[in-house]
């Protein structure tokens, strides 16, 4: 990381901080901080905002990110729904819209539609194009070496998205939007979003447990999103919680996603007539996505429907077991529950996952802080935008593999905006 990026990231992490605070946080000298801060202010990325409470000496000017100076677009591409979020520099949502999903359409047709919808979102917010740093595009599957979905041929993509295998998604979207595009899987992006917006606090080992259509996890270690050698870390949905369990679409047995993922919960609710009635599932009538069906089960549970609640609690116990495995492997300090399915069912899952981690964390040297995300419903789209903010503003120079590198036009941060 360049020294400029280090200072910018320290300001982001602190929220507000004085120049003296920056010296402490970064280890740089006072003249270095003074020069770098002046640069960041000239670039419009940082603003001075009032004073810290006086502690006897002279009053300290506080610095914070200039939230309205840059924006990013995040797109969550899924079979049933495509969700768009336009965020400011701080990762706060400024605009959001959900549109029909990719379905069985040709990838090229979907990409053209995404470009049009991104353009309309930017126009609708009234932000100048040169303040948009780029587009983050995330999906429920791994990123491959040709900047598309899926690993080796036909491996690792959920069945509904198989026609995307081999399609050069990153390059295609860059061409039609004329913006830099970063790709990632949705759970990793959700973790990046949580990190960028401060949801992990000061933890050095933190994870996002993401539940949308499936189950995944993203990891942030020592302040960096950890992606592994091929960008496919955190396949929590395929952790085995029952050796003799049902066969999963991935080929293995007893995966937590197959036993307890949202699709499994929805299928169980449909198969029990009493539960299906209580939840309001009508035979033949389908909601646009598994997530929407799962939300209906969550609402029924909240209304006190015992069958719906029992299904969720059973799922939560399995998810808790998988979460414990993750916590033990990673020595987690913080686990944030997020994703659209936990936005609606989080109050059922949180106490059960918390209890599982409290009771069984192997060495017991510290507790794992389990929280609900403040923006669970839009987490992956916000995370997609955060990928762009992170890769444009604080690109890592070493350590874990950088996020999907962005060729093509780059917004030059050294030009003054406007």
């Amino acid at each position, binding site marked *: 990381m360049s020294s400029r990026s280090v200072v910018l990231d320290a300001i982001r992490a602190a929220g507000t901080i004085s120049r003296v605070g920056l010296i402490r946080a970064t280890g740089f000298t006072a003249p270095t901080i003074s020069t770098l801060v002046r640069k960041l202010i000239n670039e419009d990325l940082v603003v001075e905002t009032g004073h810290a409470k006086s502690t006897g000496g002279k009053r300290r000017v506080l610095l914070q990110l200039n*939230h309205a100076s840059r924006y990013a677009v995040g797109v969550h591409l899924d079979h049933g729904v495509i969700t768009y979020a336009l965020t400011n520099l701080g990762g*706060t*949502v*400024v*605009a*959001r*819209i*959900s*549109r*029909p999903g990719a379905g069985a359409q040709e990838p090229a047709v979907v990409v*053209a*539609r995404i470009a*049009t*919808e991104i*353009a*309309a*979102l930017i*126009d*609708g*917010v*009234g932000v100048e194009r040169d303040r948009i740093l780029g587009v983050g595009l995330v999906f429920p599957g791994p990123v491959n070496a040709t900047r598309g979905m899926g690993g080796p041929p036909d491996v690792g993509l959920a069945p509904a998205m198989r026609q995307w295998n081999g399609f050069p998604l990153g390059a295609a979207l860059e061409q039609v939007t004329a913006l830099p595009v970063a790709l990632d899987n949705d759970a990793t992006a959700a973790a990046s979003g949580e990190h960028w917006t401060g949801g992990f606090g000061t933890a050095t080992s933190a994870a996002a447990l993401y539940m949308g259509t499936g189950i995944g996890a993203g990891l942030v270690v020592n302040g960096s999103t950890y992606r592994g050698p091929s960008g496919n870390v955190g396949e929590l949905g395929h952790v085995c919680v029952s050796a003799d369990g049902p066969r999963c679409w991935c080929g293995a047995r007893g995966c937590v996603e197959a036993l307890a993922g949202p699709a499994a919960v929805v299928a169980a609710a449909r198969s029990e007539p009493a539960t299906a009635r209580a939840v309001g599932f009508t035979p033949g009538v389908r*909601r*646009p996505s598994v997530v*929407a069906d799962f*939300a209906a089960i969550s*609402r029924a549970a909240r*209304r006190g429907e015992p069958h719906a609640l029992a299904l969720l609690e059973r799922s939560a116990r399995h998810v808790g077991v998988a979460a414990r495995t993750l916590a033990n492997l990673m020595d987690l300090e913080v686990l944030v529950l997020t994703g659209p399915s936990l*936005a*609606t069912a*989080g*109050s059922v899952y*949180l*106490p059960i996952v918390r209890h599982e981690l409290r009771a069984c964390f192997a060495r017991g040297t510290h507790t794992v802080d389990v929280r*609900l995300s*403040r*923006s669970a*419903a*839009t987490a992956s789209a916000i995370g997609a935008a955060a990928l762009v903010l992170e890769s444009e503003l604080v690109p890592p120079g070493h350590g874990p593999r950088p996020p999907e590198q962005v060729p093509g036009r780059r917004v030059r941060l050294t030009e003054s905006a406007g």
Partner: protein
Amino acid sequence: MDDTWRTSAVGLVLARPPRLLGTEPFFMEFIAGIEERLAAHGRSVLLHVVAHHDAEIAAYRRWARQRLVDAVVLVNPSVDDARPAVLRDLRLPVVVAGEPTGDNPAVRRDDAGSMRAALAHLVGLGHRRVARISGPDALLHTRTRTAALLTAAAESAVDAVVVAGDYSAESGARLTTGLLDGPDPPTAIIYDNDLMAVAGLHAVTELGHRVPRDVSLIAWDDSSLCRLASPALTTMSLDVHSFGESVGESVLRLVTGESVPQRWCATETVVVRGTTGPPR
């Protein structure tokens, strides 16, 4: 350019100070309800979050110029609200979520009935000195709830005071402390949202009081925050998703030129959890 959603989106602008984090659960569920009705017709909700009403009005002007949305859902109608007149001039069809403004169709919440239900729960437990920490006084539904509380309290010979907060956790904590440190502290407090109530619960505990033994608390807008608080908060609960569905239904009729009936949400119910009990 293709007209992808330029003829199929409904706009919703949320004007709120950036510090009000945590408003997401209510609005995301509300929007999910609208979306559930619109999705079947290929329509979507464009949510735009701005800091204040001037930026909200600027967004409406921009959308009308760009023909980006074909209707608007207006939330949080307020006293001397400038927005309905602007929207009329822009010829943007409007559905109001809340008390009607002008002759726009509205989906109303039964704020008066819900407030009476909240007070009745407390009176039933034996409370006679009740306080309420409200939302901003400029909002129409804040005033409706205030009037309903004062009338119902007078009828039940209950002392009621109302202090205005701003929905933030900070105001919830500060005003709770003020009420409990003052002369004749209330034995029960009603909050106008979840954030203020959760902060109020922490403030009560920090003052060394016990809930509900020393003071009972009722939150508004049931959310995970209320359910996960310790003890879990007794809450006035609206079916927010079905509120959104009703708004979606009205929007669909409006944009297809059908007549739009005035709709009402069900009265909120008291979900009794761990923060209400008889006064000492």
